[in-house]
């Protein structure tokens, strides 16, 4: 059952459209306001000052490219690997700020309540998206599946590996 969900083409289709849509939309919005996005990056208090604008100018386009690839189903092994890499990086940044007590909405140290609440919610949302990304990575790249056929066909459901 677990294996069927992990390799189901329908689940994968929904996941890639959801992730692709979110990444493309998020990238498009951020690309319209690079100063605003740079402020958001600054609020995370992780990147050194000289890198903030560079990331604010480039990351939205990387998100749009990976989002577009996921929606169109192009270069799926690479797109799912990149989306997992991005989501894992975001999760690490959120976790770090949760541990340091920084409200990522404003970059302020929050004594409790809403600030930490928002960060926790962002982290949980990010981890849910990362789970979707990992499903895509397993299905489309076959990395870790140990079954060559899964990576090469789109009909992996129910196939078992027989060694004997």
């Amino acid at each position: 059952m677990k294996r069927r969900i992990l390799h189901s083409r329908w689940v994968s289709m929904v996941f890639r459209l959801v992730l692709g849509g979110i990444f493309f939309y998020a990238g498009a919005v951020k690309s319209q306001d690079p100063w605003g996005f740079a402020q958001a990056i600054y609020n995370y208090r992780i990147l050194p000052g000289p890198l903030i604008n560079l990331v604010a100018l480039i990351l939205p386009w990387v998100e749009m490219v990976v989002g577009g690839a996921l929606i169109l189903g192009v270069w799926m092994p690479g797109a799912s690997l990149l989306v997992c890499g991005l989501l894992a990086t975001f999760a690490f940044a959120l976790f770090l700020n949760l541990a340091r007590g920084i409200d990522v909405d404003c970059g302020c140290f929050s004594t409790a309540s809403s600030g930490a609440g928002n960060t926790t919610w962002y982290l949980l949302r990010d981890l849910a998206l990362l789970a979707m990304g990992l499903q895509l990575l397993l299905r489309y790249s076959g990395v870790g599946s140990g079954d060559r056929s899964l990576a090469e066909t789109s009909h992996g459901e129910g196939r078992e590996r027989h060694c004997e």
Partner: protein
Amino acid sequence: MRQGLISREEKGTSRSTGARFTRALIQATGLLLAGIALGVLSKEIRGLDIPWSGGWSEKEVVARHLEGLEEISVEEAWRAYQSGQALFLDARDPGSFSMGHLPGALNVPPAEAEGASEEIRVLVQAGMIPIAYCDGVDCPLSSELARGLGERGIEGVKVLVNGWSRWRERGYPVEIAK
């Protein structure tokens, strides 16, 4: 014999796993480079005013937050408080506010400027001096609140930069929410 078969199959699987991962890595790098190229092109074509680097020293951040707004020093805020004219507006989250705030402050996070604007307008018209503050030198909340109120017709909201910390450093009185 069987062991030989398994061994060959495992080798084949291992090789193909490596090849699959390499293919995924090459594609991911390609997508990344495409994103970088589009980002560079977009900045040049659109002529964006944001530089590739810089603009995030503490001084620059504070200057950007205060653009078009009026700053008030902690001494001036203290005098306004002593004369009974200070209307402190705490722009921090309610949790931070409940753990302590400037005397008589209203808790108005920027997102709630709309709802609080009528009450603030009445108090300002009665002669109170609105002073927005938050915590941290580069905290943007107080300036966001001052701008939000300005957009709703409440002009002259002053910003006390790093207000909460500086007020406490001076040993001035604070209130804890009940």
